């Protein structure tokens, strides 16, 4: 097979040639510094921002998780904070709730945007308007969106939107956020509605990259819509699907605003307590910043595992 080379895209191995006129001869180090000075200078801002607002708090959090501050005196306490946090009866409740939310969010919040994207991709008319409609909730501040759900949709009385619909259909109504069994599904529905716009757009972009000939060939072979989705769409978008799945897991495991607003914190009988909310509770309500830091580190470790999979998948995508 003949290979073609696009002019200008090949480069000899080794150091790149400077685009500037050659100056007087310099040492290798001096040259390196001079060549990269501008780049490094511009990098300083970003590095400082990350250092101050991301890396330092992270390191500080790890350090704090091994300390205890009492009466203004900080001492090293080894694994005490971890022992204490793990012994907290809310610890396992919070993890159970968090995994439950994550799984529900994967089933609902992951599948729904994908199928909405496929539907939108099939429309021939009014595509732009429909995309705006789907993306609109993303533009609402999350707190406003959740208050809409809390007071309008999830009202436990008959006046609530969802209960009115259920009543009109002669179905039993629900207590929504006040029912421990409905807390998680209700939070996932609200969360999916709020966030799916972004995922739909990414899926749409991926779908539009699938060569049309593949669908045409599948249609010629007599494939219906489901077989086209199964044998063309899913294989062609599997990396994007995997990447978004990982992103979704990492994001949903940190859910916080949903319990805070929809359930006023912990919800009925602790049914809404997430790990992130438990961290907040320890840190800000229980005078236990060190315990909160320990819980944060535990969460960091769990999320790092999922993030590693994500990084692997992204490099594969590249």
């Amino acid at each position, binding site marked *: 097979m003949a290979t073609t080379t696009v002019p200008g895209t090949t480069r000899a191995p080794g150091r790149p040639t400077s685009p*500037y006129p050659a100056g007087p001869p310099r040492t290798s180090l001096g040259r390196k510094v001079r060549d990269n*000075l*501008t780049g490094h*200078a*511009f990098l*300083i*801002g970003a590095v*400082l921002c990350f250092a101050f607002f991301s890396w330092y708090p992270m390191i500080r959090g790890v350090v704090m998780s091994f300390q205890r*501050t*009492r*009466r*203004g*005196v900080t001492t090293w306490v080894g694994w005490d904070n971890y022992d*204490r946090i793990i*012994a*907290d*009866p*809310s610890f396992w409740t919070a993890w159970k709730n968090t995994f439950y939310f994550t799984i529900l969010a994967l089933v609902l919040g992951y599948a729904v945007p994908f199928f909405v994207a496929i539907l939108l991709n099939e429309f021939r008319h009014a595509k732009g308007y429909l995309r705006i409609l789907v993306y609109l909730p993303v533009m609402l501040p999350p707190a406003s969106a959740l208050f809409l759900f809390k007071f309008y949709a999830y*009202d*436990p*009385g008959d006046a609530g939107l969802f209960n009115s619909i259920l009543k009109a259909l002669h179905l039993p109504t629900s*207590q929504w*956020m*006040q*029912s*421990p069994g409905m807390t998680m599904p209700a939070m996932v529905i609200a969360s999916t509605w709020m966030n799916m716009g972004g995922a739909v757009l990414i899926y749409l972009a991926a779908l539009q990259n699938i060569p049309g000939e593949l669908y045409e060939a599948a249609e010629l072979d007599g494939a219906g819509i489901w077989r086209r989705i199964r044998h063309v769409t899913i294989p062609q978008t599997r990396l994007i699907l995997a990447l978004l799945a990982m992103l979704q897991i990492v994001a949903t495991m940190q859910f916080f605003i949903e319990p805070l607003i929809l*359930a*006023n*914190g*912990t*919800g*009925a*009988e*602790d049914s809404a307590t997430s790990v992130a909310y438990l961290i*907040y*509770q320890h*840190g*800000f*309500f*229980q*005078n*236990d*910043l060190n*315990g909160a830091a320990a819980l944060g580190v535990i969460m960091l470790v769990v999320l790092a595992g999922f993030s590693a999979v994500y990084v692997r998948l992204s490099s594969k995508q590249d």
Partner: protein
Amino acid sequence: MSVPQYRKAAALALVAGLGLSLAACSTKSDDAKTDAGGKVTITVDCQPVGSQKELLKNWNDDVVEFQRQNPNIVIKSVSVGEQCNNPPDFTARLAGGTVTDLFYGYMTDLQQVLDSGQAMDITEFATKDTVPTWDSIDPALKEVFTDGGKLYAVPVKNYSMGLVYNKVLFQRAGLDVNNPPKTWGEVRAAAKKISALGNGIAGYSEYSAGNTGGWHFTSLLYAQGGQVLTADGKKADFNNAKGKQVLQNLKDMRYGDNSMGDRQLLQWADLLTNAGAGKVGMFVGAPDATQAIVSQFQGKFQDWAMAPLPGQDGKAVGTLGGGEGYFFKKGLTPEQVKAGLKWIAYQKLTPGKGQFDYVRAKPQNYPVGLPQPLLFAGGSDAQKQELELRKANANVDTANFAIFEANPVPIKGEPRNAQAIYAVLDAAMSGVLTNPNANIDALLKTAEDKVNQLLAAEK
């Protein structure tokens, strides 16, 4: 200048700018000490927010007058929101070391403030010389802010809880406004009648989220004669018949009678919003709850009255008392502490001035005549003076609080590490208010385990 030179210049400017910004951030302001002119400056938080126009004006007028009387003191006011102590904000300020020189806190905050290392021992400064009414202040309130014999804050408000009830709804339900419920059985019967009015009205309403559920559980438990912690403070002490009775009363009203409304998981503002809208017949609260209903939630003073907290079969054994005070930030100079005490004395502890300036408050939309803040010991000079002024300038019908005042219930303070315990007890309260099949024994056992774990962790 060639393009690369522009880039270099831009890069250098960026670096220089960042450097300057960082330097600016790290420069410590020292304007809060004594300046060259010998003036002492102190920062004070809890200045009313802009929406509380009259309160803000009163505060600012007080600052101007105080500074006129004390030309060597400068008060810098800081507003920290409508609720001066919103626990997450308060914790963040403490942890970040950004509290003002004088900072507002609840009586329950002492341990947290001490743990943060931000509070100053003011024992030697808090005397009759700096606070003229010091000897009149109820010693029990000073004790709340004392640890190991050292005083860390000055009390500025004190309350006790009772039964707040809506007279209009009482009348509509055929109940006698002058004979409010005295026992939980009577509360239950009245709540049933009030909720029968329909239109989403709750006969009795109760908190169960944002720590307020635990706060009220504590008061209801005190009414039963119970206590949250054992006398030595080492163990939870509510998983017993008294604790069960508290939850059973609520469960019976919520699901037995359906007299507590559909909406639960209520926090402070939720309940008072409903009350302001005339949707709540009764709730447990302090006298100033009526003030919040009027000033923040569009209710009317004349609609509300107050009775003592009901007991199970007779008079309540106890009720929860609490309050607020001002702490002093560690590291202040003696001059600053004295200036701070002088300011608090003027604005919070002098009959006829600041919060006790009833002549000024009378025409404003703030109540004069409530049996609050109860700072001065009964029979003390300041108490007599305050009571006279209050009566002379009352703008609310004091008869609405007469039953409450005439039947005092012994006041019990909040438990140690109260906010953390309240957070745990929220789950027990939400359990009986949202689950018709709630297992009270299991709810109390879980809460007991959690509180014991919290206490063990403190050691």
